[in-house]
């Protein structure tokens, strides 16, 4: 049976569950040109400029070359991927208007939108997609390189069709097409050039609803409406200013006073969230990060004694009050994580061993190992490398130091900058550190990289830097990744989660939630699982 995704059918399907939860806007947003627009009294009108905080300032806007969150946010309005995803992580059209997957799971055929033009006026065709996925991205984009390595061939039978033939089934392949995982770049500009040093990197040419107008470093990035955008009448906004505001307190003030209209990720310090929620001009949501689905943890170097002992790692899990971390350090943002897979990711398994704070259990495990406290009550000394990503992580490190002292583990904190942190963690020169990783909608894309032993690679950040190795876990990840049958795939992932939670390769802390604040003047802002990264072609401003 061929899995067809005709637009009309998909539209009705989604309508059924979306209308009751009041996300009419999303439906209109995605395929407004098909539906008869149902507009409220304060319906979309053209015009208006949105001011969005961007922090830190992106180093470059060529999304293929850099995938930091700030780059994604800005460049996600300039470039587009073939797909985007809703908040339940179902694929939605973007540059591809529909797609089919063959029953054997080996052939993915994408049908592209018609009438799409690059910002320089040249037509967008299947050639650009083939160039991006076979030449440009595999050279410069590590995540895309891994995804498209699954392909036997990538071909364009005509100007509006692209066919990906896989070497073996890889059901997660459908999650490799959002704008940051696979931004489509113009072949006519990059073909045959030195991609990284192409002067066009400074003046990105995309297909998105907004074009780069001006970039004053250290101050703002100004995008303006792309009048040739393929969706008629879109985008509504005249333009978007991304404002660089490096100071957290200043960001909160700017949002409250209406100087900026949107903040996201860690822009607002957790302790400011409660007071900003009450601001009459703002609306807060934690939706829109379903695709990222970050999970934070304490990373453990299994090569260091006594961290190689499962009992010691379990003791750490028992010693740390993760509810306190959620409530007092993240001020209620996030959910206590139970295992490696975020509960917002579809393969999440709730039935796993549970660890709640229990100092007696923790001490018993350490006693069992023969780690006796000395005269000062210290059983062992360890270093904790503080993740240099802002104050909240510093507070977390301080809390962990105090917490572990209670079970006789003496921690010395080490501060470093981002370069030092990456250098030390990727070269395994640490005992403990904190970290958080995105799951990219699917365990095969975002979870397995942390736990499979084939990904223990010295010098590579965000790999299995702990040195965790469990052959059974490796087998389960490998089997699930190429399993076409959803039931069997889930069984493998569930079994994997039970094993990993028992092993405690890392001390999971939170399924992180980021607060997105949006000024109430703006509608249709956070509508997909990509949230702030998405194109904003349906965002409009309500007339005051």
């Amino acid at each position: 049976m061929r899995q067809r995704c005709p637009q009309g059918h998909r539209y009705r399907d989604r309508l059924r569950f979306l209308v009751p939860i009041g996300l009419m806007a999303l439906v209109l947003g995605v395929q407004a040109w098909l539906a008869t627009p149902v507009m409220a009294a304060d319906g979309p009108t053209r015009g208006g400029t949105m001011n969005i905080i961007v922090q830190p300032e992106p180093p470059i806007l060529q999304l293929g070359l850099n995938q930091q969150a700030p780059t994604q946010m800005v460049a996600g309005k300039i470039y587009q991927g073939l797909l985007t995803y809703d908040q339940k992580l179902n694929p939605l059209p973007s540059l591809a208007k529909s797609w089919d997957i063959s029953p054997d799971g080996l052939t993915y055929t994408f049908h592209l939108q018609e009438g799409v033009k690059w910002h320089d006026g040249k037509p967008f065709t299947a050639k650009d997609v083939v160039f991006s996925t076979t030449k440009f991205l595999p050279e410069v984009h590590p995540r895309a390189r891994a995804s498209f390595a699954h392909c036997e061939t990538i071909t364009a039978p005509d100007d509006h069709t692209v066919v990906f033939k896989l070497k073996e089934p890889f059901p997660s392949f459908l999650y490799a097409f959002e704008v940051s995982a696979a931004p489509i770049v113009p072949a006519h500009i990059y073909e045959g050039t030195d991609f990284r040093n192409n002067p066009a990197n400074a003046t990105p040419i995309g297909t998105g609803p907004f074009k780069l107008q001006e970039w004053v470093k250290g101050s703002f990035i100004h995008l303006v409406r792309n009048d040739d955008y393929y969706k008629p009448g879109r985008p509504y906004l005249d333009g978007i200013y991304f404002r660089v505001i490096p100071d957290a307190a200043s960001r909160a003030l700017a949002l409250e006073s209406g100087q900026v209209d949107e903040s996201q990720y860690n822009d607002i310090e957790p302790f400011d969230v409660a007071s900003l929620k009450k601001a009459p001009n703002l609306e807060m949501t934690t939706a829109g990060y379903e695709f990222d689905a970050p999970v934070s943890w304490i990373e453990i170097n299994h090569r260091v004694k006594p961290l190689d002992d499962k009992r010691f790692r379990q003791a750490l899990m028992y010693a740390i009050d993760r509810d306190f971390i959620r409530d007092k350090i993240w001020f209620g943002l996030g959910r206590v994580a139970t295992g490696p897979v975020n509960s917002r990711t579809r393969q999440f398994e709730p039935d796993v061993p549970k660890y709640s704070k229990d100092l007696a259990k923790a001490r018993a495990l350490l006693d069992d190992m023969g780690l006796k406290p000395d005269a000062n009550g210290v059983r062992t000394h360890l270093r904790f490398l503080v993740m240099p990503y802002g104050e909240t992580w510093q507070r977390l490190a301080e809390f962990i130091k105090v917490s572990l002292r209670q079970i006789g583990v003496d921690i010395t904190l080490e501060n470093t900058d981002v370069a030092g942190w990456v250098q030390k963690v990727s070269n395994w020169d640490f005992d403990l550190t904190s970290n958080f990783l995105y799951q990219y909608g699917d365990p095969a894309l975002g979870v397995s990289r942390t736990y499979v032993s084939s990904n223990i690679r010295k010098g590579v950040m965000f790999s299995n830097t702990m040195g965790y190795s469990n052959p059974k876990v490796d087998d389960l990840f490998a089997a699930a990744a190429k399993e076409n049958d959803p039931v069997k795939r889930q069984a493998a992932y569930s079994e994997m989660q039970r094993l990993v939670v028992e092993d405690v390769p890392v001390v999971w802390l939170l399924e992180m939630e980021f607060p997105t604040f949006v000024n109430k003047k703006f509608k249709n802002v956070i509508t997909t699982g990509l949230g702030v990264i998405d194109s904003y072609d349906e965002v409009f401003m309500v007339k005051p």
Partner: protein
Amino acid sequence: MRSKTFWQAYARNKAARFGLVIMILVVVLGLFAGVLFPASPWDMVNAPFLPPLSDGALLGTDTLGRDIAAGIAYGARVSLLIGMTSTAVAVVVGVTLGALAGFFGGWVDDALMRFTELFQTIPNFVLTVVLVAIFTPSQRSIISAIAIVSWPPLARLARAEFMSLRSREFVQAAMTTGQSNMAIIFREILPNSLSPLIVSASLMVATAVLLESSLSFLGLGDPNAMSWGYMIGSARTVIRQAWWMSFFPGLAILLTVLALNLIGEGLNDALNPRLSRQGKA
């Protein structure tokens, strides 16, 4: 100088007496921090965000419920320790180089002074920040960085003193009696050039305390040591919710630096009654 006349001269300066009293209080606070606040300053002893004069938190608590007063007491240790140690290092380096330059003159002087100039040309604070960032923040790297940017003025001062003293009769006399250079430097010249060096050093401690707090404020402090600059730095973002978190540590720095300056001026009046107050820049 006899100690009695020294004290009389020092005590004539009212401000200097005031400075000394504050300094003694700060030192006592630092020494007895463990007695006054038996719990670690990192412990979350109370509810977060308690304003000053709350139950069990005289000066309030921070974002995690740690006692601000305890932090200030333990911070006194860090500030004084780093201030004094880095100054001591700077004095040893600066006086040694300055003494060699001033005593031997010639190419030694030339080479050492060019070297000194090099360090004076790179902006101090930028260099401190870079040094600490590169060698990762720890008490050792902070002390070294502060010492590295602080020694040049001392070297110049020591050089000037040595140059002028070297031509004086008592030094010339010692030379003719065949004393070794080392003996002359340590026995004849150094004791006679101590006064201005002591004054400069005491003022340098104040600068070092400020430098350390600035580094901690920027997040480049030792993460295992509760310091005043760290407290202000971590309070900056919550200034709208909790003014006390940054106010009291700032007051502690202000008083300490003020006291050190007053003491320095008192010493100056007592030791070099005729020396001009040239400032410390």
